[in-house]
């Protein structure tokens, strides 16, 4: 299966934070051919363990990319069968109007997020975003039927399958951070071609969007020597300041800042330079919004690096990614792991 196919499959499977059962199973199946062992824990974190073929004392490396996605959740059902909802993770309420969704009740129901037609709105109203609490999902069924099939707490996902755009760009929902999971998948393949010592844990983490909770749990379990977080960052768009975004065609971004280990980050950059893989620099002055921030402070501390894929329109249903960056990131990570030779402990020091 190639990277694009896998990404397409991944974004079609629901996996809203806290309810990642289905997507975790799909990932387990995909990881199996390339790992020595694949399992998951009670929080739907998926672990793929791959052992190096080279003897000697290599590091225990943990990769983390989150498998959960933002979404909505049923809050109440009114007397006419309209479904009100809340958000799980950071959903921009302005994208919700006239969005197509699936309500995952006893059956999977198609629905639309409706609103008062414009000609019934007062002029002032039309200038404001419609708040989430005033929006409702219409599943086109009588109230009694809705109440039979749907209950409070049921999940709602967006309908937005993968679309290929010009060049190597693709677009869809939940590419944040299913693309990171694809990077791990491609890294496994790259590692098949390389010789390395030690063990690598590919962890697809749960509940990142609600506070990197899966990473807190899984890093504690693995207790790695080295952490590598893979997530997305903002791609350049006309309406965003240049200083906050990254070019779509200049490779993955490497995080720099207090959350990331300085020597290890430098080594990652050196590996990129030696192998002529382009990268950009993402400066993170405080906490990054990624698993890296929790991995670093797990137990006695884990030297961690961060690799991010530029992504346009993050947290919408039209997230846009350049697939080239997935390949570059995977290659870089695999070479980075293989570069850990005797004396690798040195790059974890200060």
């Amino acid at each position, binding site marked *: 299966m190639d990277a694009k196919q896998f990404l397409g499959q991944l974004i079609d499977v629901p996996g809203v934070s806290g309810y990642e059962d289905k997507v975790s199973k799909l990932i387990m199946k995909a990881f199996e051919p390339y790992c020595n062992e694949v399992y998951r824990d009670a929080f739907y974190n998926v672990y793929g363990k791959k052992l190096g073929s080279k003897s000697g004392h290599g590091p225990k490396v943990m990769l983390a990319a989150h498998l959960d996605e933002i979404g909505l959740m049923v809050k109440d059902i009114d007397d006419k069968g309209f479904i009100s909802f809340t958000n799980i993770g950071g959903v921009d309420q302005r994208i919700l109007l006239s969005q197509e969704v699936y309500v995952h009740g006893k059956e999977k129901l198609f629905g639309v997020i409706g609103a008062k037609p414009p000609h019934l709105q007062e002029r002032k109203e039309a200038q404001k975003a419609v708040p989430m609490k005033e929006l409702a999902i219409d599943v086109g069924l009588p109230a009694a039927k809705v109440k039979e099939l749907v209950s409070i707490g049921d999940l709602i996902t967006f309908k937005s399958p993968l679309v290929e755009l010009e060049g190597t760009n693709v677009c869809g929902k939940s590419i944040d951070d299913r693309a990171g999971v694809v990077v791990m998948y491609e890294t496994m393949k790259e590692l098949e071609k390389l010789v390395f010592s030690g063990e690598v844990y590919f962890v697809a983490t749960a509940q990142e969007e609600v506070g990197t909770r899966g990473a807190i749990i899984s890093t504690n379990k693995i207790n790695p020597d080295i952490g590598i977080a893979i997530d997305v960052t903002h791609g350049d768009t006309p309406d965003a300041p*240049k*200083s906050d975004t990254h070019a779509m065609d200049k490779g993955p971004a490497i995080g*720099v*800042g*207090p*959350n990331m280990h*300085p020597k290890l980050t430098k080594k990652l950059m050196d590996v990129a330079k030696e192998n002529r893989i382009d990268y950009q*620099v993402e*400066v993170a*002055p*405080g*906490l990054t919004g990624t698993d890296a921030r929790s991995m*670093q*402070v*797990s*137990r*006695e*501390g*884990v*030297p961690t690096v961060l690799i991010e894929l530029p992504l346009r329109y993050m947290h919408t249903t039209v997230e846009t990614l350049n697939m080239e960056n997935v390949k570059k990131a995977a290659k870089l990570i695999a070479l980075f792991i293989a570069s850990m030779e005797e004396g690798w402990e040195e790059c*974890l*020091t*200060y």
Partner: protein
Amino acid sequence: MSDLLRRLTEARGVSGNEDEVRQLIIEEVTPLADEVRVDRMGSVIAYKKGTRSNKKVMLCAHMDEVGFIITRIDDNGMLKFATVGSIDPRILPSKRVRIGDKAIPGVLGIKAIHLQEPAERERAVKVSQMYIDIGAKNKEEAEKLVKPGDYAVFDSECVYFGDNKVKSKALDDRVGCLTLIEALKSSYPFDLYACFTVQEEVGLRGAKVAGYSIQPDMALVVEGTTCSDVPGVDPHKHSTRMGEGPAISIADLASYSNKKLVSFLIQCAKNANIPFQIKESISGGNDAGEIQRAAGGIMTAVVSVPCRYIHSPSSVADLDDINNTIKLVQEFLKGCEAI
């Protein structure tokens, strides 16, 4: 002491980039401790074996300071930056900084007053409007000296002035580091772990892993804390007062001090005739927050040196307060085993 304090406060050590101050501390504590290690986050842990008991006591002071990180180099050679840790942007215009490992000098520029609209002068400057000028002609020239991700620190000399006062950057918390180094000069019946932590200013991160790895029986955090006994501030908002001795915390936003430790500290101060004050504010937080909640829970308390104008290039402390803090910590260590 005054020479060590000067070296400690002048050393560079923005959160996440504590190399220079870490090196200095390692050099200072190596002759005093049985073992010195740097943990996986970069904190320095100086271990001094006890003469008899196997109790573990942790002293903690953070070595990092607030500062800046370069985010981008503009075409005209000016550096855009973000703050690391909390800094009031209003203090920034017209200050000097040092950037990167080579300590490249730079200034925080601002448009001259003549060029500002009257309304502009009333508004606080935002970080996004500011830039660092290193005198580079253009981007290419700047890139030879600086790269995005480089850290920058206030450029500020340590000055002893006035009536027994010291002015410097990073008094928060190099005064704590100084206290720990002084404490390492004595021997104790219990095992002492003097922890010089990293990344306190960006979320108590070094203390989180240090507390977990040591899991001491008790921990005393030594801080530099806010002191607002300045004109225009109501007495109930002073928090601490300069010259009235070390401040003992009852609680702050991050931790609730262990009551036994607090009453023992007060007793120590009274017995040894050391002036002290109870911190009159519960805002802010420090390493005690993470240490207290490490593993199955740890008894913690906090003593602080009052520092005016904290998180600026010119913070001010009273030398008697510093000396009395050192004394109080030493008194605490003499008897804390019995708690």
